[in-house]
């Protein structure tokens, strides 16, 4: 049933996220052409210059809009589909609350990643365009993977950097999950009450933020102190090792945070669901 819920969730979100992503791609193409136009002889015609500048501005706005939209969709789908009238359908489907929450989480995660990659892609293309570098040049100049690997192995940091990259991916995924669950938990807790549901959701959001930032600060300070005692003098070897240790601490914190928020969400929806 989770697969069917995910399918429905994609159907509901793609109708907004696909046009937004398409708009970013089209505007990226137009804006990059405009940038070339602005730097060429077309820049002498004032009206055209204004139009080209407007396209570049619209491109910037579309990038911001895509990022904002991924966030809005994540919040709005949970709110409208589970906590408002549509909840009467969703909570009477023969599915578990876990499946309902996971479907929302997985689809939000996918849209955050797609939007992030899209923005990274179009921004890189624009950077190359501004610096008048062609993709062929980039590949020509770039050292081969084996050269990079040998150089890193020579420095003795190859395995460490691979580990750090894996950790980086884990940090990104867990941070997105924790962000979604932060909103889900606050909304679910706030909607257990009969009145002032939105106000209470905001209060829960702030309280959760405060509690976790206290925890994060405390654990980070303890982590830094432990590393300081372990390696008072840093070199490239133990530097990577220390950084990895800090990353593990951060991953652990995000895991605990996500688990606590997940169970708060599921329990509120199971025991305290109170649709209007």
């Amino acid at each position, binding site marked *: *049933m989770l697969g*069917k819920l995910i*399918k*429905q969730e994609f*159907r*509901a979100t793609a*109708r907004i996220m696909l046009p937004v992503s398409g708009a970013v791609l089209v505007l990226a193409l137009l804006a990059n052409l405009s940038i070339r136009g602005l730097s060429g002889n077309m820049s002498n015609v004032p009206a055209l210059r204004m139009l080209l500048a407007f396209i570049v501005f619209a491109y910037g706005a579309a990038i911001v809009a895509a990022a904002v939209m991924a966030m809005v969709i994540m919040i709005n789908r949970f709110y*409208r*589909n589970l906590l408002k*009238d*549509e*909840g*009467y*359908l969703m*909570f*009477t*489907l*023969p*599915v*578990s609350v876990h499946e309902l929450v996971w479907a929302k989480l997985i689809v939000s995660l996918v849209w955050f990643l797609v939007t992030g990659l899209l923005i990274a892609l179009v921004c890189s293309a624009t950077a190359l365009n501004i610096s008048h570098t062609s993709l062929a040049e980039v590949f020509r100049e770039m050292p081969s993977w084996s050269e990079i690997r040998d150089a890193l192995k020579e420095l003795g940091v190859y395995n460490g950097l691979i580990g750090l990259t894996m950790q980086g991916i884990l940090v990104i995924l867990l941070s997105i999950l924790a962000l979604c669950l932060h909103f889900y938990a606050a909304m679910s807790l706030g909607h257990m009450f*009969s009145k002032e549901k939105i106000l209470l959701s905001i209060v829960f959001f702030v309280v959760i933020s405060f509690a976790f930032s206290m925890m994060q600060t405390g654990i980070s300070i303890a982590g830094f102190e432990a590393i300081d005692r372990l390696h008072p003098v840093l070199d490239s070897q133990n530097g990577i090792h220390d950084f990895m240790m800090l990353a593990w601490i951060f991953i652990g914190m995000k895991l605990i945070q996500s688990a606590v928020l997940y169970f708060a969400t599921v329990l509120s929806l*199971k*025991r*305290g*669901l*109170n*649709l209007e």
Partner: protein
Amino acid sequence: MPILECRELSKHFGSVQALDEVSLTLEAGRVIGLLGPNGSGKTTLLKLANGLLTPTGGEILIDGLAPGKETKRIVSYLPDRPYLAEWMKVSQLLDLFEDFYDDFDRDRAIEMLLRLNIDEEMRIKEMSKGTREKAQLILVMSRKAKLYLLDEPIGGVDPATRDYILETIIRNYNPEAAVVISTHLIADVEQVLDDVVFINQGKIMLQASVDSIREEHGMSVDQYFREVFRC
């Protein structure tokens, strides 16, 4: 085994007692009117049966089980409000019901949609209030469920549609299933009811067959209701 059973079921919202130790048994094969004035606890009872609320005390069982994933497979519920996503087309809703409910009969739904001139490609937001109610009822009644829980199914529609809806309910329900119709518009539903449950201020006032009310009190259910709930 009763299809729906409440044992000293209570629900309160803060200081408001919505249901007060309700004990009730409903058997399959009957059309039951859950009748009571506004705010009497009808909707709360149906929400509890659907697992949309958790009881404060006592228990509610559907076919012997507490509300959950298993009971939702056999209960077809019509809430008292528009609950379908406005952006969805009727055809997408048919897909959704077909995906999640094994007992959903798509052909039966399409036949009813055709009869009521509801275009499958129409979006919910393009429909009038009455058409939305009809579309919702068609989806709910196109399931071959064991228990239909219909909350105010004739609330906001014109008399012609009202007749069609009642006809749909009677024509489509499986004789082995129970249909619970919650309403305060008694005169309109009386013709289709086998049994009635009167509810007021969270308590069950009466559970009887329509025939026995007519025989014992010499009046219609509507007249008897007015007598019991005289202000």
